[in-house]
């Protein structure tokens, strides 16, 4: 392995501490609290999977971590402290810009289409380097090549290619290369496999897994597929209607889900072995504008375990055992 790669001993894994984060979109129909009172510790050096249905606020949370929520969204309050960088929400604009790319690498949702269609991939690497004042542009290209090669691609071909010449799976790989080429210690991947077939998905996930391990980085993986988090993530965070429903160590959450929504998501995964009748569909529709207005538990309408209290009060997000937090009145804290 080349000396360009950061060695494990040299790097200190970067964690992120999110407190009381609130993001609102102003729309014709009113204010959408897309992220509401989120407290979350992203552990350094781990893969954290953030899962939730469409509209649950995953992308908004990711954007807020980088203080890059697009109009008409607005971060109303809260803090996002990135180790070694500071609070992304109060840093001056220039330091924020530098942090995005240098410290926080990001692959956008639909990265399929986020490359510049008119410029060759290699040029885009150089543009990225210049915008971050990279002195050694040759070294940067070399790192880009190494990464592409590492991901099973013909690096020279890819660097001279335009976006339309690459398949969906290749574009995702290129997106991951961009997120890593400046040696970011945190990478945020928003739905990196959604538009891919199973085999491309598996190979992209395999790449994420091995690069994560080699570089000892902090990885945040956003997806609506429980299977993807269950396979890859060390920790899982379940979002529902802009709030956190449950988090914990992946194997623990999968084996002993506490929140009824988490249970539902796990049961709804069809399996390739065992009894098919164990798979149960999740009922109802994903959260929408009306859900956010509810005063009680956001999951109330769809919950098979609801009681009267759930309709009137929002359950607090509380510790329910070691490394585990849950927002549900039906879950008794472990002793």
């Amino acid at each position, binding site marked *: 392995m080349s000396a360009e790669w950061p060695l494990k001993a040299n790097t200190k894994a970067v964690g992120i501490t999110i407190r009381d984060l609130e993001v609102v979109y102003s729309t014709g129909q009113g204010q959408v609290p897309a992220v509401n009172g989120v407290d979350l510790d992203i552990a350094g050096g781990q893969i954290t999977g953030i899962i939730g*249905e*469409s509209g649950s606020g995953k992308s908004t949370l990711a954007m807020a971590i980088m203080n890059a929520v697009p109009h008409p969204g607005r971060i109303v309050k809260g803090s996002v402290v990135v180790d070694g960088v500071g609070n992304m929400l109060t840093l001056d604009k220039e330091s924020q810009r530098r942090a995005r790319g240098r410290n926080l690498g990001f692959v956008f949702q639909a990265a399929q289409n986020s490359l510049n269609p008119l410029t060759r991939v290699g040029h885009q690497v150089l543009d990225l380097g210049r915008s971050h004042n990279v002195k050694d542009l040759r070294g940067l290209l070399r790192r880009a090549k190494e990464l592409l090669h590492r*991901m*099973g*691609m013909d690096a020279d071909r890819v660097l001279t290619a335009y976006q339309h010449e690459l*398949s*969906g*799976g*290749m574009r995702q790989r290129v997106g991951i290369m961009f997120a890593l080429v400046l040696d970011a210690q945190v990478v945020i991947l928003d739905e990196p496999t959604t538009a*891919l*077939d*199973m*085999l*491309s*998905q*598996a*190979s992209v*996930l*395999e*790449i994420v897994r091995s690069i994560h391990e080699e570089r000892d980085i902090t990885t945040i993986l956003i997806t*609506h*597929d*429980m*299977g*993807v988090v*269950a*396979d*890859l993530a060390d920790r899982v965070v379940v979002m529902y209607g802009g709030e956190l429903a449950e988090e914990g160590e*992946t*194997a*623990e*959450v*999968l*084996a002993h889900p506490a929140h009824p929504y988490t249970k*539902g*998501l*796990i049961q*709804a*995964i*069809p*399996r*390739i*072995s*065992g009894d*098919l009748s164990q*798979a*149960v*569909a*999740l*009922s109802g*529709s*994903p959260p929408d504008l009306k859900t956010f207005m509810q005063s009680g538990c956001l999951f109330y309408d769809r919950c098979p375990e609801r009681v009267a209290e759930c309709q009137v009060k929002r359950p607090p997000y509380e510790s329910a055992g070691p490394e585990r937090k849950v927002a549900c009145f039906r879950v008794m804290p472990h002793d």
Partner: protein
Amino acid sequence: MIEVRRLEKTFPGKHGLLGHDAVKAVQDVSFRIPDGGAVSFIGESGCGKTTIGRILAGLENYTAGEVLVDGQNLATVDRRQREAVLRRVQLIQQDPYQALNPARTIEQALSDPLKVMAKARGADTAWILQRMEEVLGLVGLEPEAVVHKYPHMLSGGQRQRIVIARALTVEPSVLVADEAVSMIDVSLRLGVLKLLRDLREKFHISLIFITHDVASARYVGEDGQMFVIYKGMIAEQGPTDDVILHPQHPYTQALLSAVPVLKGLESPGSDRYIPLKELDHGQSPENACLFAPRCPFAQPLCETERPALQGASGHQYACHYPQERHVVAVALKE
């Protein structure tokens, strides 16, 4: 009953700047589906699954081979019969957004085909309304809750149910579901898969299920046949659970390895492997195994001779060196 023999489809090549060679999208594919039966086609993007579905639905012609629907040959029936035959085969496409006209309510979307049906059988408006309620009920939707809505007001799962309801209005005997759940939120997919399964059971509708996801193919057609397609050819075929539990072809094994392993509930199969190299869409040499360039087990013979389907009649595979491998995740004991 549908019977397909030695189906072949070649898309002609193009000259010029964006030109390409002729594409052999489907080669030598044969299968049959009894009434109420299920056949699934699995394979990665670009392997020819959609082309097979479109041919069965009469939307694409074919280069060679025979397609028989209830004994009638699609290539030789006269035009009017052909229409009647094809009405029995309904295609459900991947994208429910595109399949529905955004400017028309659900009621309008469903009444078009129902009017045609009503005319054919001399029924009146009351019949149309009653039938509309019936088909919506079949797909698990509350008629009052959806008929006056526009497609954008529904969730992806609800929209795909409407598309299925519309297909049911013409009382088909075959549904061709092409990636019917892949655009729907994962949490809602199982509901639609269950609906397809129920339609088979209750109405004896046969199902052709096209997907890249082995698990959903198993869910709708555990009792049916599975066809693993690679670059337009059958790599492996057999009863669904046989193919999944005793896969012989390395490509099938790659697809099965790609199914996520649920940490805490399962451990990975001991032979699990995932090829990092992407499918190349170029021409393959006529006398080599199509999968050889990506196959970790390829031998010299694989580069010089294309393997034919072999194996007992029920379960067959096109591989010179078939070998069962343990790639499916194993449930952990509690």
